[in-house]
């Protein structure tokens, strides 16, 4: 029971709850519901056919490949950055922390553009790449790089505050007792940060699978070759294959829901909610 002074009159409680739920209904629940409703509009048969279609399968494969490269790379980056920032003192630490967050402030479209400026036909390395018959832009490496840019802060920003709060006492004891660096990290630090790491990984994974703006600039939209799942959704939608677009979109929506469930489980665990 709340103390009287912090309790609002019943009408205010009802009104505010109603306003909040209506807002969330129109901006969250209905958009989510419409994805599944539209996806199944032409029946389960059409739904399954759209997902099993070769170009859709290629898009799913490319998305999984991108994630398989980007997420481990960003985990390595996040762990290294958090280790350096949380366990040591050095000048310019706050500047480095800000720089790590920088990609979140950059529009995804600009993230794509800058890679075109570096690796595109008219970019810095364009002539060299052409001379060596290598392709980055309008090819898989460009998609991987642009996705890595957009998602690189996720793991680091989860781990830095966590490892800072944990301090260095446990690691120092381990080292004093004769453990080497890797042993210390694997047996002392990793068990302490595993949930934070997992949290960062699922957020990074969700964003990497769903990234649209950055990938759209560097992909070139070559069907079956450089189309990721979100780009495939766009193509189907622009061809007025609405049910098809929503069928592929529903897979991404399921991924989002799974992300929210896992994220909540981690949060409840950490908050000690049974």
């Amino acid at each position, binding site marked *: 029971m709340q103390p009287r002074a*912090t309790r609002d009159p019943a009408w205010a409680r009802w009104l505010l709850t109603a306003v909040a739920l209506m807002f969330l209904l129109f901006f969250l629940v209905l958009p989510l519901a419409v994805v599944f409703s539209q996806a199944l509009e032409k029946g389960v048969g059409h739904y399954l056919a759209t997902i099993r279609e070769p170009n859709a399968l290629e898009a799913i494969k490319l998305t999984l490949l991108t994630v398989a490269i980007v997420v481990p790379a960003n985990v390595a980056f996040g762990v290294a950055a958090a280790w350096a920032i949380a366990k040591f003192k050095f000048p310019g630490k706050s500047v480095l922390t800000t720089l790590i967050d920088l990609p979140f402030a950059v529009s995804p479209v600009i993230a794509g553009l800058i890679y075109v400026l570096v690796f595109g036909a008219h970019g810095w390395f364009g002539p060299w790449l052409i001379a060596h018959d290598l392709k980055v832009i309008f090819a898989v490496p460009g998609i991987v790089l642009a996705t890595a840019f957009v998602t690189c802060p996720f793991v680091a920003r989860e781990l830095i505050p966590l490892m800072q709060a944990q301090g260095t006492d446990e690691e120092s004891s381990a080292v004093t007792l004769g453990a080497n660096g890797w042993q210390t990290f694997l047996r002392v630090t990793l068990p302490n940060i595993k949930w934070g790491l997992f949290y960062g990984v699922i957020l990074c994974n969700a964003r990497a699978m*769903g990234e649209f703006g950055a990938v759209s600039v560097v992909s070139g939209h070559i069907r079956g070759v450089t189309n990721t799942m979100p780009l495939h959704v766009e193509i189907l939608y622009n061809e007025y294959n609405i049910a098809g677009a929503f069928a592929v979109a529903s897979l*991404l929506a399921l991924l989002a829901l799974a992300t929210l469930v896992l994220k909540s489980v981690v949060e409840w665990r950490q908050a000690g909610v049974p």
Partner: protein
Amino acid sequence: MTPARTSRSILPGFGLSMGFTLAYLGLIVLVPLSAAFLRAAGMSTHDFVAAVASPRVIAAYRLSFGASLAAGGVNMVFGLVVAWVLVRYPFPGRRIIDALVDLPFALPTAVAGIALTSLYSAHGWVGRWLAPLGLQVAFTWTGVFVALTFIGLPFVVRTVQPVLQELEPEIEEAASTLGANRWQAVTRILLPELAPSLLTGFALAFARALGEYGSVVFISGNMPMRTEIVPLLIITKLEQYDYRGATAIAVVMLVSSFILLLLINLLQKWSRRYHAI
């Protein structure tokens, strides 16, 4: 700080972790970003101004900044109400609703884009009720605003919620004991307490909305001068092989974002100090 100093020096791996961090950050983020600035620096002032201040670009700035401000404002009001209800009023299904607030972070923007378009178009579940009222959402300014409200929704809730949770009930009790009615306690005690986090949430939502692309392009209709947002204009210029024009606009947007990032950092420092007292 002497103990920290000694314990710090015995931990290994500084060179390796710092070296990898700087190399990765440099290669993935800083060098490519500098490409935009170096490219723009290579343009003459006249060309640069012509590229970033043509009427079509100005119209796009007005749309992007205006709709982002409006969406941030709406999220500030409704985000506060949602955070308030989630923290203060227990109701069935509260934890599910709480988890769902992060949906815009988790749902790919292209999916959000086509879902909102379908929902708010003239034949959509919501749009068909708005159409007789003369309110067209899809393919208008309102559509851009709706999409930006969606993607900015979690920011205010997630910055205000923890502050609200940690607020001592004693200050409200004191206000009540001293004769303030509930309305006075809320407007004079609670709102000023929440102001820094509300502003931070607003700034985060605004910054995100400025650069947003995926959720907007489907619902906006993309008419030049009317419903064309800045990120789309950058892509249009790229597709026309106007790399200089695209880069110049991108630099304007990057500088705006960095100024916002700086403001957000200051706001967060302010709100931390505010709550430390």
